[in-house]
Protein backbone atom coordinates (compact mmCIF):
# COMPACT_ATOMS: atom_id res chain seq x y z
CA UNK A 1 0.00 0.00 0.00
CA UNK A 2 2.78 2.39 0.95
CA UNK A 3 4.72 1.59 -2.23
CA UNK A 4 1.65 2.20 -4.41
CA UNK A 5 1.09 5.48 -2.63
CA UNK A 6 4.73 6.43 -3.19
CA UNK A 7 4.58 5.52 -6.88
CA UNK A 8 1.29 7.33 -7.27
CA UNK A 9 2.68 10.36 -5.51
CA UNK A 10 5.81 10.35 -7.63
CA UNK A 11 3.76 10.03 -10.81
CA UNK A 12 1.65 12.98 -9.75
CA UNK A 13 4.73 14.95 -8.86
CA UNK A 14 6.01 14.46 -12.40
CA UNK A 15 2.63 14.85 -14.04
CA UNK A 16 1.41 18.04 -12.32
CA UNK A 17 4.30 20.26 -13.44
CA UNK A 18 4.10 18.76 -16.94
CA UNK A 19 0.37 19.45 -17.15
CA UNK A 20 0.95 22.95 -15.82
CA UNK A 21 3.42 23.49 -18.64
CA UNK A 22 1.12 22.16 -21.36
CA UNK A 23 0.77 24.77 -24.03
CA UNK A 24 -2.34 26.60 -25.18
CA UNK A 25 -2.96 28.06 -28.62
CA UNK A 26 -2.46 31.77 -29.18
CA UNK A 27 -5.74 33.60 -28.52
CA UNK A 28 -7.36 35.32 -31.50
CA UNK A 29 -7.36 38.56 -29.54
CA UNK A 30 -3.59 38.32 -29.28
CA UNK A 31 -3.19 37.56 -32.97
CA UNK A 32 -4.98 40.86 -33.60
CA UNK A 33 -2.99 42.65 -30.89
CA UNK A 34 0.36 41.49 -32.30
CA UNK A 35 -0.71 42.39 -35.83
CA UNK A 36 -1.87 45.83 -34.72
CA UNK A 37 1.37 46.55 -32.87
CA UNK A 38 3.35 45.46 -35.93
CA UNK A 39 1.28 47.73 -38.16
CA UNK A 40 1.74 50.69 -35.82
CA UNK A 41 5.46 49.99 -35.61
CA UNK A 42 5.70 50.03 -39.39
CA UNK A 43 3.71 53.26 -39.53
CA UNK A 44 5.73 54.99 -36.81
CA UNK A 45 9.17 53.53 -37.58
CA UNK A 46 9.37 51.86 -34.17
CA UNK A 47 9.99 48.36 -32.95
CA UNK A 48 8.10 46.66 -30.12
CA UNK A 49 8.91 43.44 -28.31
CA UNK A 50 5.65 41.45 -28.25
CA UNK A 51 7.35 38.10 -27.67
CA UNK A 52 5.07 37.17 -24.79
CA UNK A 53 2.00 37.32 -27.00
CA UNK A 54 3.39 35.63 -30.08
CA UNK A 55 2.43 32.00 -30.83
CA UNK A 56 5.53 30.62 -29.11
CA UNK A 57 5.44 33.21 -26.31
CA UNK A 58 5.19 32.65 -22.58
CA UNK A 59 1.48 33.51 -22.61
CA UNK A 60 0.72 30.08 -23.98
CA UNK A 61 2.63 27.91 -21.53
CA UNK A 62 -0.58 27.02 -19.71
CA UNK A 63 -4.29 27.64 -19.38
CA UNK A 64 -4.01 30.30 -16.70
CA UNK A 65 -1.52 32.44 -18.60
CA UNK A 66 -3.44 31.96 -21.82
CA UNK A 67 -6.65 33.24 -20.25
CA UNK A 68 -4.81 36.23 -18.75
CA UNK A 69 -3.18 37.14 -22.05
CA UNK A 70 -6.31 36.61 -24.11
CA UNK A 71 -8.18 39.06 -21.90
CA UNK A 72 -5.23 41.45 -21.79
CA UNK A 73 -5.02 41.58 -25.58
CA UNK A 74 -8.75 42.12 -25.97
CA UNK A 75 -8.69 45.03 -23.52
CA UNK A 76 -5.41 46.43 -24.79
CA UNK A 77 -6.25 46.51 -28.50
CA UNK A 78 -8.60 49.54 -28.39
CA UNK A 79 -6.08 51.38 -26.23
CA UNK A 80 -3.39 51.09 -28.92
CA UNK A 81 -5.31 53.29 -31.31
CA UNK A 82 -7.17 55.62 -28.97
CA UNK A 83 -6.91 59.10 -30.40
CA UNK A 84 -5.75 57.97 -33.84
CA UNK A 85 -7.78 59.34 -36.76
CA UNK A 86 -6.86 56.55 -39.16
CA UNK A 87 -5.73 53.40 -37.40
CA UNK A 88 -4.18 50.73 -39.62
CA UNK A 89 -6.63 48.07 -40.87
CA UNK A 90 -4.95 45.52 -38.60
CA UNK A 91 -6.09 47.55 -35.58
CA UNK A 92 -9.73 47.84 -36.48
CA UNK A 93 -12.24 45.65 -34.58
Amino acid at each position, binding site marked *: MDLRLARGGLSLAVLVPLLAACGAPQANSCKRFVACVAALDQQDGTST*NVARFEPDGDCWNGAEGAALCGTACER*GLPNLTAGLDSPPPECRP
Partner: protein
Amino acid sequence: MRRPLVLTAFVLLLLAPAALAHAPARLWPGEVFPLPDPKVSWALFGLFESGEELFVVAVDLDERFASPVEVMVPHRDELRDHRPAFAVVGPGLPTPSLEQRQRLPEALPAGWGLALLDLNEIEPRPVYFESFLRRFFWTSEPTAVVLPRGQSEVWIWSPRRTNGKFLLGVGVEEGGGYFEVFDDWSFYAY
Protein backbone atom coordinates in the same frame (compact mmCIF):
# COMPACT_ATOMS: atom_id res chain seq x y z
CA MET B 1 13.05 4.00 1.07
CA ARG B 2 9.30 4.60 0.72
CA ARG B 3 9.11 7.57 3.08
CA PRO B 4 11.69 9.70 1.24
CA LEU B 5 9.86 8.95 -2.06
CA VAL B 6 6.52 10.02 -0.63
CA LEU B 7 8.07 13.10 0.96
CA THR B 8 9.81 14.06 -2.29
CA ALA B 9 6.57 13.65 -4.22
CA PHE B 10 4.71 15.78 -1.68
CA VAL B 11 7.31 18.57 -1.86
CA LEU B 12 7.27 18.53 -5.67
CA LEU B 13 3.49 18.77 -5.67
CA LEU B 14 3.69 21.81 -3.39
CA LEU B 15 6.32 23.45 -5.59
CA ALA B 16 4.52 22.92 -8.91
CA PRO B 17 2.26 26.01 -8.61
CA ALA B 18 5.33 28.06 -7.74
CA ALA B 19 6.60 27.54 -11.26
CA LEU B 20 3.77 29.77 -12.46
CA ALA B 21 3.99 32.42 -9.75
CA HIS B 22 5.01 36.07 -10.09
CA ALA B 23 7.99 37.44 -8.14
CA PRO B 24 6.62 39.35 -5.11
CA ALA B 25 7.69 42.73 -3.77
CA ARG B 26 6.29 45.36 -1.41
CA LEU B 27 5.42 48.91 -2.44
CA TRP B 28 5.52 51.83 -0.03
CA PRO B 29 3.82 55.20 -0.52
CA GLY B 30 6.20 58.06 -1.09
CA GLU B 31 8.94 55.69 -2.28
CA VAL B 32 9.48 55.06 -5.99
CA PHE B 33 9.97 51.33 -6.54
CA PRO B 34 12.37 50.62 -9.42
CA LEU B 35 11.18 47.45 -11.14
CA PRO B 36 14.32 45.30 -11.29
CA ASP B 37 13.47 43.49 -14.52
CA PRO B 38 10.29 44.64 -16.27
CA LYS B 39 10.46 41.66 -18.64
CA VAL B 40 9.66 39.09 -15.97
CA SER B 41 6.40 38.86 -14.05
CA TRP B 42 5.87 40.68 -10.78
CA ALA B 43 3.26 40.79 -8.02
CA LEU B 44 3.68 44.15 -6.28
CA PHE B 45 1.78 44.46 -3.00
CA GLY B 46 0.81 47.67 -1.25
CA LEU B 47 -1.52 48.94 1.47
CA PHE B 48 -3.67 52.06 1.45
CA GLU B 49 -3.96 53.25 5.05
CA SER B 50 -5.38 56.74 4.50
CA GLY B 51 -6.72 56.34 0.98
CA GLU B 52 -4.66 59.36 -0.08
CA GLU B 53 -1.48 57.49 -0.96
CA LEU B 54 0.16 57.37 -4.36
CA PHE B 55 2.30 54.34 -5.13
CA VAL B 56 4.86 54.65 -7.93
CA VAL B 57 6.68 51.91 -9.82
CA ALA B 58 9.53 53.05 -12.07
CA VAL B 59 10.20 51.11 -15.26
CA ASP B 60 13.32 51.43 -17.41
CA LEU B 61 13.47 49.46 -20.65
CA ASP B 62 15.97 49.16 -23.46
CA GLU B 63 13.15 48.63 -25.98
CA ARG B 64 9.40 49.09 -26.35
CA PHE B 65 7.85 46.13 -24.58
CA ALA B 66 4.28 44.82 -24.44
CA SER B 67 3.08 43.39 -21.13
CA PRO B 68 -0.18 42.63 -19.33
CA VAL B 69 -0.87 44.80 -16.27
CA GLU B 70 -3.72 44.55 -13.75
CA VAL B 71 -4.57 45.53 -10.20
CA MET B 72 -6.16 43.14 -7.73
CA VAL B 73 -7.70 43.39 -4.28
CA PRO B 74 -8.21 40.55 -1.78
CA HIS B 75 -11.71 39.19 -2.11
CA ARG B 76 -13.04 40.25 1.30
CA ASP B 77 -16.34 41.96 2.13
CA GLU B 78 -14.69 44.98 3.73
CA LEU B 79 -12.83 45.61 0.46
CA ARG B 80 -15.90 45.42 -1.73
CA ASP B 81 -15.68 49.14 -2.59
CA HIS B 82 -11.89 49.25 -2.71
CA ARG B 83 -10.95 49.77 -6.36
CA PRO B 84 -7.44 51.14 -6.80
CA ALA B 85 -6.78 52.64 -10.20
CA PHE B 86 -3.53 52.68 -12.12
CA ALA B 87 -1.94 54.52 -14.99
CA VAL B 88 1.15 54.05 -17.13
CA VAL B 89 2.74 57.46 -17.64
CA GLY B 90 6.03 58.76 -18.94
CA PRO B 91 7.95 61.05 -21.25
CA GLY B 92 6.89 60.96 -24.88
CA LEU B 93 3.74 58.93 -24.36
CA PRO B 94 0.48 60.00 -26.05
CA THR B 95 -1.04 63.21 -24.77
CA PRO B 96 -3.98 62.44 -22.49
CA SER B 97 -7.40 64.01 -22.98
CA LEU B 98 -8.63 66.62 -20.53
CA GLU B 99 -10.90 64.04 -18.95
CA GLN B 100 -8.01 61.64 -18.50
CA ARG B 101 -5.85 64.35 -16.95
CA GLN B 102 -8.62 65.15 -14.50
CA ARG B 103 -8.83 61.51 -13.41
CA LEU B 104 -5.11 61.28 -12.60
CA PRO B 105 -4.08 61.68 -8.94
CA GLU B 106 -1.69 64.52 -9.76
CA ALA B 107 -0.52 66.61 -12.66
CA LEU B 108 1.79 65.00 -15.17
CA PRO B 109 5.29 66.44 -15.42
CA ALA B 110 5.92 68.54 -18.51
CA GLY B 111 6.36 66.41 -21.62
CA TRP B 112 4.79 63.34 -20.05
CA GLY B 113 1.89 61.44 -21.56
CA LEU B 114 -0.28 58.45 -20.86
CA ALA B 115 -0.09 54.91 -22.26
CA LEU B 116 -2.90 53.43 -20.16
CA LEU B 117 -5.43 54.66 -17.63
CA ASP B 118 -7.42 51.94 -15.83
CA LEU B 119 -9.92 53.32 -13.32
CA ASN B 120 -10.90 49.80 -12.25
CA GLU B 121 -14.61 50.46 -12.69
CA ILE B 122 -15.38 47.17 -14.40
CA GLU B 123 -18.81 45.67 -13.66
CA PRO B 124 -19.48 42.98 -12.70
CA ARG B 125 -16.24 42.78 -10.82
CA PRO B 126 -14.28 39.68 -11.88
CA VAL B 127 -12.88 37.30 -9.27
CA TYR B 128 -9.55 35.55 -9.80
CA PHE B 129 -8.03 32.66 -7.86
CA GLU B 130 -4.29 33.19 -7.38
CA SER B 131 -2.97 29.64 -7.41
CA PHE B 132 0.28 30.22 -5.54
CA LEU B 133 -1.12 32.19 -2.59
CA ARG B 134 -4.29 30.10 -2.85
CA ARG B 135 -6.39 33.25 -2.39
CA PHE B 136 -9.27 34.86 -4.26
CA PHE B 137 -8.87 38.41 -5.55
CA TRP B 138 -11.08 40.92 -7.29
CA THR B 139 -9.30 42.00 -10.45
CA SER B 140 -9.46 45.02 -12.73
CA GLU B 141 -8.82 42.49 -15.52
CA PRO B 142 -5.44 42.51 -17.25
CA THR B 143 -4.76 44.92 -20.07
CA ALA B 144 -1.90 44.56 -22.53
CA VAL B 145 0.04 47.82 -22.69
CA VAL B 146 3.10 48.82 -24.69
CA LEU B 147 5.67 50.15 -22.24
CA PRO B 148 7.94 52.69 -23.92
CA ARG B 149 11.65 52.44 -24.44
CA GLY B 150 13.41 54.33 -21.67
CA GLN B 151 11.71 55.48 -18.50
CA SER B 152 8.07 55.32 -17.53
CA GLU B 153 6.09 54.92 -14.34
CA VAL B 154 3.05 53.04 -13.11
CA TRP B 155 0.96 55.10 -10.68
CA ILE B 156 -1.48 53.37 -8.34
CA TRP B 157 -3.98 55.35 -6.28
CA SER B 158 -7.40 55.00 -4.64
CA PRO B 159 -9.91 57.27 -6.43
CA ARG B 160 -12.59 56.52 -3.82
CA ARG B 161 -10.11 57.20 -0.99
CA THR B 162 -10.72 53.67 0.33
CA ASN B 163 -8.23 51.74 2.46
CA GLY B 164 -6.94 48.23 2.02
CA LYS B 165 -4.40 46.07 0.30
CA PHE B 166 -3.82 45.79 -3.41
CA LEU B 167 -1.64 43.82 -5.77
CA LEU B 168 -0.29 45.18 -9.05
CA GLY B 169 0.34 42.26 -11.42
CA VAL B 170 2.80 42.80 -14.25
CA GLY B 171 3.55 40.09 -16.80
CA VAL B 172 2.47 36.50 -17.13
CA GLU B 173 5.33 34.06 -16.89
CA GLU B 174 7.16 33.01 -13.77
CA GLY B 175 9.76 35.48 -12.59
CA GLY B 176 11.61 33.44 -10.05
CA GLY B 177 12.30 34.68 -6.57
CA TYR B 178 8.74 33.79 -5.60
CA PHE B 179 9.88 32.22 -2.38
CA GLU B 180 10.44 35.74 -1.04
CA VAL B 181 6.71 35.69 -0.41
CA PHE B 182 7.45 33.53 2.60
CA ASP B 183 9.52 36.38 4.08
CA ASP B 184 6.30 38.26 4.78
CA TRP B 185 3.60 35.66 4.32
CA SER B 186 1.26 37.35 6.79
CA PHE B 187 1.19 40.47 4.62
CA TYR B 188 1.10 38.85 1.20
CA ALA B 189 -1.47 36.18 1.99
CA TYR B 190 -3.91 37.96 4.31
